[in-house]
């Protein structure tokens, strides 16, 4: 009986020990979960020298993902803590409160996506008055843009797109173009449209038969592409200005069984676009280097904080992703 009692004592002792360790582990993990998500303490998180605010449209476009990735990647080197505000892409005015907040909070830097019709010069002046380094980024520098604008060069994107289409279709090209949701209003003023128009001039009577601005939203690209194909039977090429529009247009072409009869030149990169390129649905994609733009924006902020000098507008350039080539 005594031996049995000792065996029980040892067994229950081990159970007690295991239960205590499990309990401690569970409590630790629960507290970690709370800490990670809720119980934030300034002393526990990493500090930074600069407070850098980024204001972007709330879009799932890979251009913006790349932009944020580029900024986040470079921020530690600039000793900056990055705070991203996203506003609904349908209303650029929604960006206004965040711009004001950044000024009121006296942040050190503000990287803001600027649509081509934005009052970028005025913003830059207000920011300068409040001691905030203002770095505008976008696809194309708005008219009268302040020095320091960092863009993707959508004019060159349009030229490259037109060249790629005409290389395949030549003068038979009947092109439809899906323009960015945010823009100056007039389609003819869109740099990408202008670039495309300039590129096909060398292949008469190649023409742009349709140009539509994509509406904000996930499915808007599909609606636009579908409507464009239905209303223009002669259309045999599509040029997209964003990654989401590219995926939408590809899906429409597949659904309408127009693969091979309508050539798609996409924009930017994503796994879906790569898949469509591999399948031959998308001929090529003109990839705007938004990561570089993000890095360059942080770099410009650092330079501005160091010596206060503003740089001339720069364009990031592009690369082409296709099944048989790449480059920039």
């Amino acid at each position, binding site marked *: *009986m*005594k031996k049995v*009692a*000792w065996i*029980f*004592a040892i067994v*229950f*002792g081990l*159970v*007690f020990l295991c*239960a*205590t360790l*499990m*309990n*401690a582990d*569970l*409590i630790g*993990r*629960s*507290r970690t*979960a*709370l800490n*990670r*998500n*809720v*119980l*934030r303490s*300034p002393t526990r*998180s*990493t*500090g*930074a*020298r*600069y*407070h850098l605010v980024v204001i972007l449209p709330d879009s799932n476009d890979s251009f913006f993902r790349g932009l944020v990735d580029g900024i986040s990647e470079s921020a530690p080197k600039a000793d900056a*803590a*990055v*705070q*991203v505000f996203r506003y609904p892409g349908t209303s650029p005015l929604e960006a206004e*409160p965040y711009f*004001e*907040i*950044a000024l*009121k*909070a*006296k*942040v050190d830097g503000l990287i803001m996506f600027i649509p081509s019709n934005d009052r970028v010069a005025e913003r830059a002046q207000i920011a300068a008055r409040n001691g905030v380094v203002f770095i505008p980024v976008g696809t194309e520098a708005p008219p009268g843009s302040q020095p320091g604008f960092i863009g993707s060069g959508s004019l060159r994107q349009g030229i490259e797109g037109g060249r790629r289409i005409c290389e395949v279709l030549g003068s038979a090209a009947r092109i439809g173009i899906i323009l960015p949701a945010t823009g100056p209003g007039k389609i003819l003023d869109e740099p990408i449209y202008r670039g495309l128009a300039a590129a096909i001039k060398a292949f008469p009577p190649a023409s742009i038969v349709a140009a539509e601005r994509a509406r904000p939203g996930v499915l808007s690209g599909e609606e636009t592409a579908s409507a464009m194909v239905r209303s223009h039977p002669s259309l045999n090429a599509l040029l997209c200005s964003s990654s989401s529009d590219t995926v939408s247009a590809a899906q429409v072409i597949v659904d309408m069984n127009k693969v091979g009869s309508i050539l798609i030149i996409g924009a930017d990169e994503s796994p879906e676009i790569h898949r469509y390129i591999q399948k031959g649905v998308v001929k090529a994609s003109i990839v705007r280097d938004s990561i570089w733009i993000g890095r360059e924006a942080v770099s410009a902020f650092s330079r501005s904080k160091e010596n206060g000098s503003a740089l001339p507008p720069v364009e990031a350039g592009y690369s082409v992703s296709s099944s048989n080539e790449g480059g920039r």
Partner: protein
Amino acid sequence: MLGTVRLKIIANCTLVLLIVGSATFYTGLASSQLARSVVIFFRDNLLMEDLRQDLDQTEEGLTGYLTAKSSDSLKDYIRNSSRLSEHALKLNRAIRTDDYLLLQRDLAGTIDAYLEDANASVSAKRGRDVKGYSDRFELSVRDAELSRLLITRIEGIFISDSLKAFSGFNARISSLLATNAVLVAAATFMGLALLVAFSYKLTRPLSRLAEAAMAVGRGEYDHELPAPESNDEIATTTAAFSSMQASIRQAFEELKSKSEVEKRLMEERVRVLDMDHKLKASELLALQTQINPHFMFNTLSAGMQLALSEDAERTADFLETLAVFIRYALQPPSRQVEVADEIECVERYIWLLRLRFLDRFKFEVHVDEEALRVHTPALLLQPLVENAVTRGLKDREEGGTVRVSVRLAGQEAILTVEDNGDGMSEAEIQRILREEPGQEILHTGGIGLRNVIRRVTLATNGKGHVELISHPAQGMSVRIHLPVGVES
């Protein structure tokens, strides 16, 4: 104090209580930590609610003052703006790589801007600067809107994060409760098992002691108690019990030994009494025979006179010798005589035997001169000679020889009677020496060999002894060893 049963009980109970207590303490501590986590969980959210409330009340006070310019509204504004300012101080203002903390920093900035604009508006109002206070008021309203936007955003993040946190927390809460229950149960059962084990360890010596006590009760005084494993009261009791057991065992041994001695003494006493009784019986017999021998002696003397008167000298000699022998024999056998007297008695007896047996037996007597004056109990040799003739040589028709000799050897005189007759068997010798009752060897008209041995022992206080040497079919020798100078 060390090693006492009380200390052991206290130590064991303390250990068990510590185990159970530690489990309880741990679960309590864990619960309080979780409770504290939950408090912290909501603390920031409460701060947001306070800020929102302060902002509303401050704005209300400000609007009230600017519209009515009442001192109450101003007081409300001052009180509320102070509280707003205090609460705003709790917001994070450091630059941290955390979105939530950066939002707090933004909020702190917008609230500061709001308070600055609001205060400027009040100041302008006091200065009657209508445009100034209306402009700053509009700015303050915008600041408040931005602050509310940030509060809403912070709360949104908080709710989103809280849900994630609660999801992570809730996923483990049932496991946590289960491990808590297992922990407490395991601690309780472990404590119980330890208590049982300790109680066995503590009471085992007592059980052994009880078994030993019961064994002693049954009379098993040899029941061994194992050596105590500890140095406590039980060990002391066990040692005392062992000592008591040993004492009882020793007392019993002594009692047994004493009883044996007493038994032997009693047997000795009985033997002595028996001997006395037999001696007295012998003496009585002797007395009885003395009565008649006097008559017989007188009669023999008269016969001797008659034989002389009739010139029958040989008959007269016979009667005279027989009368003298009888007179010697009838005197008390316990008396001491000289060896010379004993030899004279034996020679007379031999003379009488020769008359009876003629030349059938040969008798030889050899006595050292220096041994003649040695004292000896009376009538030792005659019974031995008689025994040799009547037992040893009874079946010899001729050639039977009886030798009687006396010599000194150191401090003792050795009286020997030997014959060349049948001898005695070893069993017979042992029976005579053991003095078995009812086995006395008596002879007609004489005292037997056994009587001789006993008388030698008694007369010499055990210093003398009789030696029986027998060679079956070859003869027997009886040697009486008497210490020289022994008086009865």
